[in-house]
């Protein structure tokens, strides 16, 4: 029994340390924007974010133990079952689901409610048994790009596809596409606001473009005979390749301008204060000031192109090229 309790305690510590899914929200532009500006309307986007977050948050705590280690420990059958039954309750998600179910049912515990809690618990558990995408798989099949930076750009695109920011933007974009096809006509201003929101959803990633390369990747960059601006360019093209398809149902030209400004502002923290990121989490951006500057630049550029003149796009291109050249020198 003591062995199982020791293990549970260790698991709880590991879980607490890995609680980056919620921590990352604090520095994410998308969540800052929805919290500060959208207020009540933000409930919709928070629901989307909640849906996207359910996947990594509902992981089984026992999976934190390396699979080659668990069978080697001298646990009796009783201790093993204790561990199996007790470990899911280390995950705050389990408590959250249970609390939500009780609250949702008017705080009365009935047989149906218990059944619902059990169902939710089982659903979360089943989701947790799905393997996180690692090896091959559909999402890793990315197109080839022309030029010698092809493989770097493909790698960068795969990294973006392993962040929750992308899926948040994807759901928003898909929802807008469905609305434009099946819903009533949309006011122009709403289209512009949604474009800012979709670019904003991915903009935190533009502040930490090297965050998913790991130590090995960073060491390889230093060995490759390429200039700093080429590394930044490979990152930026992958970012645009991920974002532009999501902008097609919205305002693509204005969105492109916003994306270029997000990258231009994001290069400073990318190069100056590189932050390691985790896969299948929301990206944590740099300092709050960077996030605010980035969001203002995105909103002004999108609104400038959308409402005033297309000439804001070449301006954004010039600013972006200048940023790639300037910050590329520091790499």
């Amino acid at each position, binding site marked *: 029994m003591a062995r199982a309790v020791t293990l549970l305690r260790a698991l709880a510590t590991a879980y607490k340390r890995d609680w980056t899914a919620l921590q990352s929200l604090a520095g994410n532009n998308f969540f800052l924007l929805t919290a500060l500006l959208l207020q009540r309307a933000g409930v919709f986007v928070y629901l989307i974010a909640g849906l996207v977050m359910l996947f990594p948050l509902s992981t089984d705590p026992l999976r934190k133990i390396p699979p080659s280690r668990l069978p080697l420990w001298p646990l009796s059958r009783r201790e093993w079952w204790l561990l199996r039954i007790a470990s899911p309750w280390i995950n705050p998600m389990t408590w959250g689901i249970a609390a939500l179910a009780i609250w949702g049912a008017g705080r009365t515990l009935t047989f149906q409610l218990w059944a619902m809690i059990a169902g939710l618990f089982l659903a979360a558990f089943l989701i947790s048994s799905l393997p996180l995408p*690692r*090896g*091959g798989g559909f999402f*890793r099949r990315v197109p080839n790009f022309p*030029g*010698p*930076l*092809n*493989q*770097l750009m*493909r*790698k960068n695109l*795969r*990294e973006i596809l*392993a962040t929750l920011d992308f899926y948040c933007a994807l759901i928003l974009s898909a929802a807008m596409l469905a609305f434009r096809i099946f819903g009533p006509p949309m006011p122009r201003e709403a289209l512009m606001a949604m474009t800012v929101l979709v670019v904003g959803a991915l903009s935190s990633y533009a502040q930490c473009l090297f965050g*998913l*390369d*790991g*130590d*090995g*990747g960073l*060491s*390889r960059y*230093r*060995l*490759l*005979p*390429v*200039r700093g601006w080429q590394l930044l360019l490979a990152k930026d093209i992958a970012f645009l390749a991920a974002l532009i398809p999501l902008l097609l149902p919205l305002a693509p030209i204005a969105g492109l301008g916003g994306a270029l400004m997000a990258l231009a502002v994001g290069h400073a923290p990318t190069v100056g204060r590189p932050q390691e990121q985790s896969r299948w989490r929301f990206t944590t951006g740099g300092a709050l000031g960077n996030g605010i500057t980035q969001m203002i630049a995105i909103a002004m550029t999108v609104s400038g192109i959308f409402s005033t003149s297309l000439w804001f796009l070449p301006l954004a291109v010039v600013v972006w090229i200048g940023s790639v050249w300037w910050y590329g020198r520091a790499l």
Partner: protein
Amino acid sequence: MISCRNLTRRFGDFTAVNNLTLEVGAGAICAFLGPNGAGKSTTVKMLTGLLPATSGEASVAGLNPASNALELKRRIGVLPEDLGLFDDLTVEEHLLLTGDIYGVPRAETHARTTQLLHALSLEHGRRTFAAACSHGMRKKTAFAMALLPNPRVLFLDEPFEAVDPVTAKIMRELLQSVARHGVTVFLTSHILSMVERIATQIVMIRKGQMVWNSSVTELPQSLEDHYFDLVETPVVEELEWLGPSRS
């Protein structure tokens, strides 16, 4: 091909490499030996242009690593300590990336990739992502990346660690073959038996100071004995609690 005079690197008050003077000719296989923390990796970083020297001079493939780092990177192949692989690229994509970046023509890159994958028994895992590879596969991928651009100088950090005996033999023979064709090989290793078989020049370093530099034929005793005498004598302590007869 590799030359350095009084090469020194300090980190604050700590001197990692102290007045290293060394010559390694074309076609030589130089084994750079020493315990962990002796200054081997710092030396390799200085010679490959990744770290500036505090003082002293160096020349690799005719270039000064400090002032011609980009051109130097085109002429050398490196197997770094941490292997330098991207989790989101497959084994094959790493090699294609290397060919593209080093300016090897596309058809030639494909031909060399196929040959290297075959030679290092990596064909079965060519589409495996680096994140899902075993340590041995990752090591072989990084080794193949170092060879693919046909460099003039090869820097290899622990090339034989964590590879199976057959692959170790293949790697050894590949290195001997490239050295015969004039490539200079500069390697660090803790597997002294392997070093004794492959190296033509032995350099030993301890606490940042070079303590031995000679051809392998000039060693006065076996490499292992000489290493223990000059660099570090192993001290084995008895652990009193080990054994079924003890509690």
